Each structure stands twice: as C-alpha cells, then as structure tokens.
C-alpha cells in the first residue's frame, strides 16, 4: 500500500495543473477515520492518506461541483456510485478525472473503537492482510479479525477495484476475505414474523434523531435541500418523534434509490445512531436483480430499471384474479 500512495500522489501531481481540484482523503481528527481532502495546490498532495480508514465515498461531492474540472480518488464501491451518477447524467464524464484504487476493506470506526479501547496513545497505521486487520498503536501492532472491524458493506463486496477510472493505481485484487461474518439484518428479519419485523423497526427507529445524515451522505440522494422529508406541502412525514414517521422516511429513501443504490454503505456509516438502514436498500436490490437482472453501478450505458419498462416483462407474472 505504501507504493500505491506514492504512485497516487505522483499521478495527482501530474494531473493537478489541468484540474480545479482533486478530492482525496487526509488524516482526520479521529484516529480511526480519515477525512475528505480538497486539493487545490501541490503542497496539499503530501497530506493524502490511503489506507482502510479512507471510508467516505467521495463521489457524493461531484454533482455539487458540476461545471468544474474535478479529480477524484475512488475505491471499488465508490466507483460504482460514479457509474450511477454518470448513468443519470448528474455528472459529466469529461469533467471528471478518476483515480481508481484497489480497496482491501474499509474500517468501521465505531466497531474498531469498541474493539481497540482508548486511542489516546495514537494510531500510526491500519492495514488489512488476508483475513485480519492490523492496527499499529504506539508502535505495538494489534491484530483483529476482519469480521469484527470492517464495515458491513465490505462483507458483501462485489468488486474491490475501481472499474471505471482514468488512472488505476497499484495492483488489482480480490475483495477482502471475511470469514464467519455475523448474520445480516436481512437474514435476521427473515426469521421473524411480520409483526416482529414491524416492532424491530419501531425499536430501531425510536433511536433515530432525524439528523438525515443518511440522506446527506448518500451519493445518489440528489434532492438534498429539497427533500420530501422536510416538505410541508406535500406532507409526507410529520415532525413528531414517532418511529412510524422515521420508518416512513427510510421507506422514502429506499424507494427513491431503488434500482440506483450501489450499496456503498454511506447511509449506514453516517448514521450516528448505528441504525441498520442499508437493509431496506439491500432488500430492494435483491428483488431488482431477480426482476430485471440488473445491478446498479456496473454499466454507465445502461438505464436504471425504474427509468424504463418492457411491454412484456420476463419475470413479472400477471395476477391471477
């Protein structure tokens, strides 16, 4: 990874003069997660970091920077968001310079914090090798199983290399090998009765503080400032603290991203209450795969399935009655 970061810096330095900015990651205030870095001058390039702490999906910034020449560093999952943005013509391919990387898995900062305890001694480096993650704290390495410290989205990673890019840096590789992953929320739900499922969400949503970080962090939530959740007319959700209203919002988010969501996991990572909200999107994605044989974020020339139709739908059976 050390060589990747040097190559990345070199490529960015080369491209920077022709660009308005390059978005990458730099060390953040929290030792377990890096922070987006907006590079406009060469001196900033030295601040770039690249390791499993680079969790944010930077693609989400691009629609807001339309019209500018922007360079962007992406992991495999981030690149799928880029494809989706290109499909929906929310960004212009010729304005974006993509620096693609192979990702070894992204750390779940909350889980890692819990597993590691106090970090006041500092955390020099984080890396993923084979089935484990290693954290070097004050010179002493600590090794933890991936299932314990990676983000849940990495357990179901469909490709760790940025497939759409102008410059691929480093070696291509396989997704992280996570063994003995805990059951997904979707699997847990499948074992419940309908009533238990409703009450599961009621309990989860009772913790929601309505900060809408899930939406703000979603690279495909394009309404942003004009979100249905905050509209009074129409009045989709009311302002009371009832879990029903918050679940309604999650249904809005899931349906608005249906056929578009690439499972980049930003909604769940951004949630300060740790709510398993990507589950709803995963459920829709499974169904969309079955119905339309479609996976979001794979082909820039395809259209999302709910943007079009077939007169004869291969996998939709007409009702009997």
């Amino acid at each position, binding site marked *: 990874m050390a060589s990747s970061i040097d190559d990345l810096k070199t490529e960015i330095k080369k491209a920077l003069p022709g660009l308005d900015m390059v978005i990458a990651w730099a060390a953040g205030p929290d030792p377990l997660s890096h922070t987006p870095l907006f590079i406009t001058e060469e001196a900033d390039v030295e601040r770039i970091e690249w390791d499993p702490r680079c969790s944010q999906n930077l693609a989400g910034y691009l629609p807001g920077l339309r019209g500018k020449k922007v360079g962007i560093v992406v992991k495999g999952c981030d690149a799928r968001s880029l494809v989706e943005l290109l499909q929906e013509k929310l960004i212009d391919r010729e304005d974006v310079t993509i620096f693609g990387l192979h990702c070894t898995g992204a750390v779940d900062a909350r889980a890692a914090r819990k597993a590691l305890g106090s970090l006041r001694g500092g955390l020099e480096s984080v890396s993923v090798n084979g089935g484990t993650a290693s954290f070097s704290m004050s010179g002493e390495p600590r090794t933890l199983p991936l299932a314990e410290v990676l983000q849940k989205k990495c357990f179901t990673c469909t490709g760790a290399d940025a497939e759409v890019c102008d410059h691929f840096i480093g070696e291509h590789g396989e997704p992280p090998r996570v063994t003995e992953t805990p059951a997904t929320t979707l699997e847990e739900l499948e074992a419940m009765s309908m009533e238990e499922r409703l009450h599961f969400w009621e309990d989860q949503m*009772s913790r929601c503080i309505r900060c809408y970080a899930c939406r703000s962090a979603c690279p495909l939530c394009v309404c942003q400032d004009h979100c249905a959740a905050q509209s009074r007319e129409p009045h*989709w959700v009311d302002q009371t603290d009832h879990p029903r209203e918050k679940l309604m919002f999650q249904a809005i988010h899931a349906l608005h991203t249906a056929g578009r969501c690439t499972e980049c996991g930003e909604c769940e990572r951004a949630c300060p209450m740790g709510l398993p909200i990507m*589950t709803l999107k995963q*459920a829709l994605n499974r169904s969309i795969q079955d119905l339309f044989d479609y996976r979001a974020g794979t082909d820039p020339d395809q259209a999302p399935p709910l943007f079009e*139709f077939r*007169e004869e739908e291969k996998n939709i059976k007409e009702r009997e009655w």
Partner: protein
Amino acid sequence: MSVNEGKELRIIGFLCNWCSYAGADTAGVGRFAQPTDLRIVRLPCTGRINPLFIVRAFMNGADGVLVSGCHPRDCHYSEGNFYARRRLEVLKALLPVIGVDPGRFEYTWVSASEGQRWRSVVTSFTEQVHALGPMPGFKSGTSLDMCLCHMDQTQAL
C-alpha cells in the same frame, strides 16, 4: 365507533380513472353484491401512483391496499401502467421487510367494462385481507396523542 367496527377492515383502493374506477361503477350499476371494506381513491393513471402512497397508507393503519389500473397496452396515456408495474413489483419487496404481510397489497388490471371481474377482484382481495386480520400496529400506537405520551415514558432521548 362505526357500526362496522370489527366486521370491516380498512382497505384502500387506488384506482385509475379510465378503467378500474369505471369498472367499479359498472359493478355498482350491475348491482353486483360485493364487500364494502374498500375505500376508493381515484387517480388519473396507475402511473400517477407513487409507491409511497401505499407505504403511507400502511403506516397510517390501513389493513390492505389494492391498486387497479388498465390492462397492459391499454393505458390511456400509453405507458403509465408499464412504469407502475415495475414500481409496484419493487414495492412488493419492501413491504415484508418493514413488517407488512405481502398478502395485504395487490395490484391488478380491470377495464371499464369488466364489472363482474371487478367484483371478483374486490371479493377475493377482501377475503385475503380478512384472512390475515387487522394490520399489527406499532407498540406505541398510531394516533398522535398516544404516541407522544408513550415516547415520554420509554424511548431513548
């Protein structure tokens, strides 16, 4: 309290103006006996139906939701029901995940002349929803004042 309390369930029907709504009327004019649980909302086209209408109906306590529009290739606006078909199929994947039994939601196609067919659709859907019984509620209730009192007592701050 309604006289039908305990006998009727709350079923919402989103019907296309150009076909099923008229089909329901045909059934009425033909004096076909049919269950009365369905409350009809008339829309210009099934393509106008935001799947969120259906989610919102369930969140607000509906026991069942029926969507009915023009047969495929018969849409008044050519392609509204084609889009609706895809959206409603996708919605079917969401409902059971949030705890709504898939049997509480159906979509179907009924034309203006199919009064008899309308009757059988409404009858079988109503029977299907009755077999499932009332939609399970939130533990904290559904009405505004109930939920506010409850929250004060048990929820995390």
